[in-house]
Each structure stands twice: as C-alpha cells, then as structure tokens.
C-alpha cells in the first residue's frame, strides 16, 4: 500500500474501553490492529473516525501519544456517527484515518507561560495538549487551565481535574454557566462565563501563550479580553471546527478564508485569521 493509499483507507482499531464522562459524552480508548500499532501525532491533531455502514467524522485526539499505540477519543453524542460510536462496546471495531491537521506548535510554546481555555467539548484537544505539557513540565513556565462547562454534571474528566487541582505546578480554574444540583465534591467551581473568569486572573500577557478551544461564541468573547490585556495575536492559538469530509484538503468544505481547516489548521494563530470574515 502506498502512503497515499494509506491516508485514504481507514485502519481497523478495536475499542478497548469506554468510560462515560457525562450524560452525552464518553471517552473511548482504541487500539490499532496490525503490526505497527504505534500512532504518533501532535496534540491538536485529529483523526477521521469511521463507523462501518455509517461514515466518517473528524474527532480530536484527546490524549498525548501513547507508546502502546492506544488512542483516546472524547466524543459527544450529537448525530448519526457519534451515536453509532456511543452504541458500540469494548471489542467492537471501528476505522481510523490520520492523524490530520497541524496540531499545537509545542516548540513555539517552550519556555513560555501557558494558558489553556477550554469550553465544553473543547476540552478534548486541550487535554491532549495538557498531557504533553505535563509530561515535559520543566520546559514551560506557569501553566493555567481555565475550563468552563454548562453545569456541574457536564464537567468532563472530573477525576483528572481533582488530581490536577492538587498539583502545585498547575493552576486550575473551573466555571459553570449555572448550577442545578450540589457541586461535585473536591472541585471548587465558579459560576459564570469564561470571560468573567479571565478578567479575574493575573498573568503576564507578553510571556504567555494561549490555546483556546470551545464552541464558536467562546472565541469572540475571550480573544477580545486577551488582546486588550496585551497578548500578542500570534501567541493566541485557536482550534477551530468546520465541516470536513476528507481531512486532506480535497473536499473543500472547511476553508477559513484561503486556509483549509483540515490541513492549514485546525489550530490557527489568531493573527492569521483575524481579518478573515466568518472565521470566528
């Protein structure tokens, strides 16, 4: 099989574990079949997940690359393919193509303070970045994770967040839009939107790199505050969602200006897309 063919034919992967994170979101661990199960990628990259008989959906890699080739996907049930995945069990087989996209520029982040801003499912690609940063913790300065969810029950990766909150070398700030029930034990949580949270923290804008991922409205309201605070536009990284079919820059559904989200992105420097109408 040529390299070009390999990039269009999904490889078979087996679901080895499923853990439910919230009412509609679950973490799926997959292992690739075959002789070279190792799967290397950069945090922020995504794969095309195939459900046989259903089709493909782009899904972010939600953990750092693992030596045994295990892949983690954090998927919300929203439509056909994601429902088929949610209906699958350990041992079922799916297809994987990729990795695709550029991912976060870890080199550029080295030595700098890092601010991660995740809204809702935006936690998926940022978790992968977070894992990579923690694995090489010494190479980066202050590390802050700001994470907003709709309500306490929708907070993903609770146990990991509890562990994170105990660490002294990471600052964790959580917020929820509203509260309906008891707050989950062990997690201090604000109530309100992420921009409000942002206004309350102190950071050195010139030495900080920011990575943001979340629903479309999140970008507008956080970026304004960051730029106003003095963050350089080329140090703000955004992971964008677009409709995608091929993942390889052919199907032409995902252009952002004259950039293609699947190959030139999905991670963009704010400075590169600031003037593109409809980018954010």
């Amino acid at each position, binding site marked *: 099989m040529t390299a070009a063919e390999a990039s269009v034919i999904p490889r078979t992967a087996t679901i080895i574990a499923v853990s439910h994170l919230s009412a509609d979101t679950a973490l799926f661990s997959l292992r690739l079949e075959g002789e070279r199960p190792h799967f290397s990628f950069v945090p922020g990259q995504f794969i095309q997940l195939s*459900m*046989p*008989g*259903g*089709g493909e959906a782009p899904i972010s890699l939600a953990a750092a690359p693992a030596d045994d080739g295990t892949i983690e996907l954090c998927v919300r049930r929203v439509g*056909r393919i994601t*429902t*088929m995945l949610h*209906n699958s069990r350990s041992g079922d087989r799916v297809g994987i193509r990729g990795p695709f996209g550029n991912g976060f520029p870890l080199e550029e982040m080295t030595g700098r303070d890092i601010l991660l801003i995740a809204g809702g499912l935006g936690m998926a690609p940022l978790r992968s970045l977070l894992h990579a940063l923690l694995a090489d913790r010494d190479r980066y300065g202050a590390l802050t994770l700001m994470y907003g969810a709709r309500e306490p029950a929708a907070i993903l990766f609770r146990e990991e967040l509890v562990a994170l909150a105990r660490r002294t070398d990471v600052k964790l700030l959580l917020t929820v839009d509203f509260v309906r029930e008891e707050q989950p034990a062990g997690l201090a949580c604000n109530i309100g939107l992420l921009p409000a949270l942002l206004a309350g923290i102190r950071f050195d804008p010139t030495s900080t790199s920011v990575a943001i991922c979340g629903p479309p409205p999140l970008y507008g309201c956080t970026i304004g505050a960051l730029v106003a605070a003095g963050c350089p536009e080329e140090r703000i990284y955004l992971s964008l969602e677009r409709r995608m079919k091929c993942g390889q820059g052919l199907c032409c559904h995902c252009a952002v200006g004259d950039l293609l989200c699947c190959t030139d992105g999905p991670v963009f420097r704010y400075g590169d897309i600031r003037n593109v109408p409809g980018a954010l």
Partner: protein
Amino acid sequence: MKKPNVAIAGLTACFGCQLTLLDCENELAAMADRFTFAYFPMGVTTRTIEGDFDAAFVEGAVSTPEDLEMLVHLRSRSRLLIALGTCARWGGIAGLKNNEPRLPLAETVYGGDAHHIDTFNPGPLHRFVSVDAAIVGCPPEKPDIIATLAALLAGTLPVFTAYPVCMECRERENLCLLIERNKLCLGPLIQSGCGARCPAAGMVCEGCRGPAAETNSVAQETLLREKGFTRDEIASRMRRFSWEWDHDQDH
C-alpha cells in the same frame, strides 16, 4: 444477528410505496431473510399488531380517524417510525386541494351521502406524531428503501443527499427543459434522489419527491412568471404533492 422486527402499513395511499418494496425483485429474498415482517398486510397474512417493532414504515397521509388510530398505535409500538413516500412525508397527492374544505369536496364525489364519510384534509405523519426518518418519492425509489433497510441492519438511519433534482439532472447530462424549452420544471425546488428520472425521459419534474432541504421558491416563481406561466398554474403544480413550502428568502 437478531432480525429486526418491522411493520409496514398503509394509511390514505395508493399502496405504491409498499408495492415499490415488493418490486425489489432481486432483493426480496434477502429482505425476507434479514427481517421479520411482523405486520405487513399487503404482503403477508398478519392481522394483529403484536409486540414491539424496531421500525414501522408508514405509507400514506392521515385523513380519517382510523388512519390516525393506526398511526398512533404503530408509533407507540415502534422504536423508529419511518415515513414511507411523499404522502406520508408531505401529505401527497390526496392533499392537493387542502385549501378547500373537505365536505364540499366529498360531496362532489359522494353527493348527498358525503356526510357518511368520516374524512378530514389529508396531512403528513409529522403533523400527528414524531417521525424519525423519511423516504420520499411518489413512488419512492427502490434504492432508497433498500438503503434504509440496510442502515437499520447497520444500526443507524440513512442519509440522503439534500440538494435538488437539477444537480442530478446535470450529472446525467439531460437537456434542461426549464432553460432550453421554457417548460414548467420544478427540478430546482425538489428533493433529489430519483436521478432526475423525469427530465431524463424528456418530461418536466412534477415535484413528486417534495421540497428539497433548501429551496428558493420565491425566485423560482419569479422565473416561471417571467417565462409566462400564471400564478395559478405555478401554484397548482407546486401544491400537487406538498403544501409545506418555505417561502423565506435566506440571504
């Protein structure tokens, strides 16, 4: 693999949608093998609706109390309810005079006996119950029925292209009857999936698959008016199979 239990039933209809299923001559054996047709009066002698269904395919519009009773009955027993055909999805041919009251229409046909007949203006299924998926067409295309059954086996529902008939018509390199012959072709407004069957046979699209996901009916009407068709003619054609036109201008 467990055989899915399906029901196939007709309401106010011509039975063409069910017949299309029986016209899948090459696939019928596979269907019989893969599915349990637990209720399918047209094809199998089963008189009672028993147990639950994985999917119920319902053909036809709702126009009598009995139709409604049957529909609610099937809905409450089926995990998925699938509208089979244009009557079920859009109201279809029987509703083409839904702008007129029912009783005088019935009187045209049944005269003084019309009051015996319990009937109301035919409406699509989704007016009465929730519908999970639809196969359109008057009659539907065999591949759409087969794709839906296949999707059920794969544990999902099918996706059909959402664009209008013109796209398929161009792909087939038909002569455009609207542009080249100034005929009243509804292709630009109508849900594709038939392979532009009628233009390929030299006939205009009469709209049997109902509105496409996105239509610009205002622009189409303007165009047809420019070509000399009257408002009435256009309305009569557009309402032959559906009343649910979205006249919003999206821009």
